[in-house]
């Protein structure tokens, strides 16, 4: 294509002229488009000029004078200014690209689209933006903005002692992250919370998956009766809202008046167990509760898979003299795992961030000496406590950033292998 020398060089001229948005379009004799682009660019600076100026100043200084400046509001405006700049850059790049493309058309000797065609083009090209726009707008403000804000916050010293409006907040670089690994109290807490998060994720999820698959296989035996009623009864923990069940369990496991100690263990002559005051026993209890809550979902998924395994496979295996265990190991289990692998993996990420069961059962407690988190706090509930009870905002933000890095890494590795990802060719 490059070998085919163009007669003229409109594409480069148009793109160059587009440094001021709209001029390139005017050069390409698209008057209305050019005018619209010019007006858009001008109004962008008129409308947002103040916000950009103020936002960027506030972002870099985080305020200089009390009580005039509120550091956190300045930071919010700064982040919003960055989002607005982001949109501006997208528009700007599109403007140059558009001028270049139309210039290329002229170079190749095609006529530039007429006004009527342009109008039709705007309708056609604009329609997807019209559709996706509102949802995207909400997403930017309630998801993207908060995440960006937390990332920036993790580089400040925002806490109880540096809290507007009485004080200013300052940039402190990576101090929050280094302290997380060098200061004893933070390092100990971080290491023990992180370790427990990993143990919790693996034990609870694996147990619920194993229980779900096991029960589904048992129920699916051909000669077993009352399948329907058994399935309905066993699916109940999924049907009842989880927060209700967790709160009920926290009553059942109560050290002094709960049914587990008073009715069940007493019936076997076992002494009461300190479920809510000993960290080890609390851990046992929440792993049990999560298994109870989570197995029906896996069971329902597995049942669907089991019903789609062709009967001939089992018949052929029987002819070859396979035992029940052989059949399970070589036919049933691989089929189940192949079909439900993505769901099982999302269960692991779900439990990694399973705030409700940790917090509603015992508020992450019981308290442990020598660390700033409770004995059963996982990363996400620790972040909640740092924010809501001890006002360690910047530390909470730093933990959030570390947590997000872990999740995104694991999930990207996982998603890279799924079909949808490959089909999109990304």
């Amino acid at each position, binding site marked *: 294509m490059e070998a085919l020398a163009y007669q003229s060089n409109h594409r480069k001229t148009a793109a160059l002229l587009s440094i001021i948005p709209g001029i390139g379009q005017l050069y390409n004799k698209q008057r209305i488009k050019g005018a619209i682009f010019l007006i858009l660019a001008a109004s962008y600076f008129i409308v947002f000029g103040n916000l950009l100026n103020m936002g960027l100043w506030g972002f870099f200084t985080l305020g200089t004078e009390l009580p005039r400046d509120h550091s956190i*509001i300045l930071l*919010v405006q700064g982040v919003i200014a960055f989002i607005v700049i982001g949109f501006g850059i997208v528009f700007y790049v599109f403007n140059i690209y558009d001028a270049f493309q139309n210039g290329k058309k002229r170079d190749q000797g095609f006529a530039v689209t007429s006004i009527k065609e342009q109008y039709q083009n705007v309708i056609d090209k604009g329609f997807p*933006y019209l559709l996706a726009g509102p949802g995207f707008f909400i997403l930017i403000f*309630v998801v993207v903005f908060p995440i960006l804000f937390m990332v920036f916050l993790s580089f400040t010293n925002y806490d109880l002692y540096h809290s507007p409006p009485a004080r200013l907040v300052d940039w402190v670089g990576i101090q929050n992250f280094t302290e997380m690994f060098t200061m004893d109290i933070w390092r100990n807490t971080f290491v023990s919370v992180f370790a427990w998060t990993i143990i919790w994720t693996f034990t609870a999820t694996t147990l619920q998956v194993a229980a779900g698959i096991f029960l589904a296989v048992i129920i699916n035996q051909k000669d077993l009766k009352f399948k329907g009623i058994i399935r309905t009864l066993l699916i109940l923990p999924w049907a009842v809202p989880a927060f*209700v069940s967790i709160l*009920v369990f926290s009553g059942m496991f109560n050290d002094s*008046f709960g049914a587990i100690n008073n009715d069940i263990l007493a019936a076997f002559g076992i002494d009461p167990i300190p479920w809510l005051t000993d960290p080890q026993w609390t851990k046992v209890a929440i792993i049990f509760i999560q298994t109870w809550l989570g197995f029906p979902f896996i069971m329902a998924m597995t049942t669907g898979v089991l019903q789609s395994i062709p009967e001939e496979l089992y018949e052929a295996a029987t002819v070859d003299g396979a035992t029940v265990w052989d059949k399970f190991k070589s036919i049933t289990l691989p089929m189940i795992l192949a079909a439900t692998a993505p769901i099982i993996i999302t269960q692991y990420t779900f439990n990694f961030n399973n705030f409700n069961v940790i917090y509603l059962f015992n508020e992450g407690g019981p308290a442990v000496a020598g660390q700033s988190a409770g004995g059963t706090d996982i990363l996400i509930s620790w972040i909640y406590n740092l924010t809501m009870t001890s006002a360690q905002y910047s530390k909470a933000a730093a933990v959030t950033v570390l947590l997000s890095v872990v999740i995104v890494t694991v999930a990207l590795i996982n998603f890279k292998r799924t*079909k949808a990802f490959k089909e999109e060719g*990304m």
Partner: protein
Amino acid sequence: MQMSIKQEKIIRLTLSYLVLLAAITIVIYPILWVIGSSMNPGDSLTSSTIIPQNATLLHYKDLFTKTQYLTWYWNTLKICISTMILSVIFIGLTAYAFSRYRFFGRKNGLLLFLVLQMIPQFVAILAIYILVNLVGLLDTHFGLVLVYVGGLIPMNTWLAKGYFDTIPRELDESARIDGAGHFRIFWQIILPLAKPILAVVALFSFISPFADFILASILLQSDEKKTLAVGLFNMVSDEFGNSFTLFAAGSVLIAIPIGLLFLSLQRFFVSGLTAGGTKG
């Protein structure tokens, strides 16, 4: 030792029934226990039994007369239904755009959604709080609903887009040849075919605000604005033991209708998740 096939079958089935019986007992016990507690006379559980001796419905009456329970219930339904309606509209439109149109920024948009769906929205609670506070929507249901809708968009858009992709494109093209505009194709051709996935999206967007505790507990502050999850948690943690029977009654009144609703819609969940699981 030779076992006849019949003997083996009896042993296998007996063991299976025993295992299932144990599982059912573990599943049912807490449910029966909370129903029993809700009918126990007295406020605390010290004297309670799973089958109450003098069963009473007093706690159910107290729930309506002495607490804000009905208000919480109404708030929760209002929030869930608004979230559901708004999410279905936004997610349906966004997913349709991503599935059918090739536009500037599409690929990066999809990648952004993919990354965002992995980070739980509530890690940024502090930022959400500050933002909602700044725009004056703190302690309003509207603010909470907007936050929920935004959080639901990334994952459900992928789910719905996957389904839209399976609807043949020839349908749109023949409609376009017949002169149908963009909006008519969406409204009259695609929407009727996409009903199953929109039902799944609707279910998910109803359930997740219902189950949420963390955002509701931060963004709603006055007692009469609270949702069930927050209200019940406070009922338990404020005066634990003293109003447990009241809490139990409150739980039963949530668990029964939601449980029945869920059981009747359960197959949608399974189909929706397997569709989403294999596609996205």
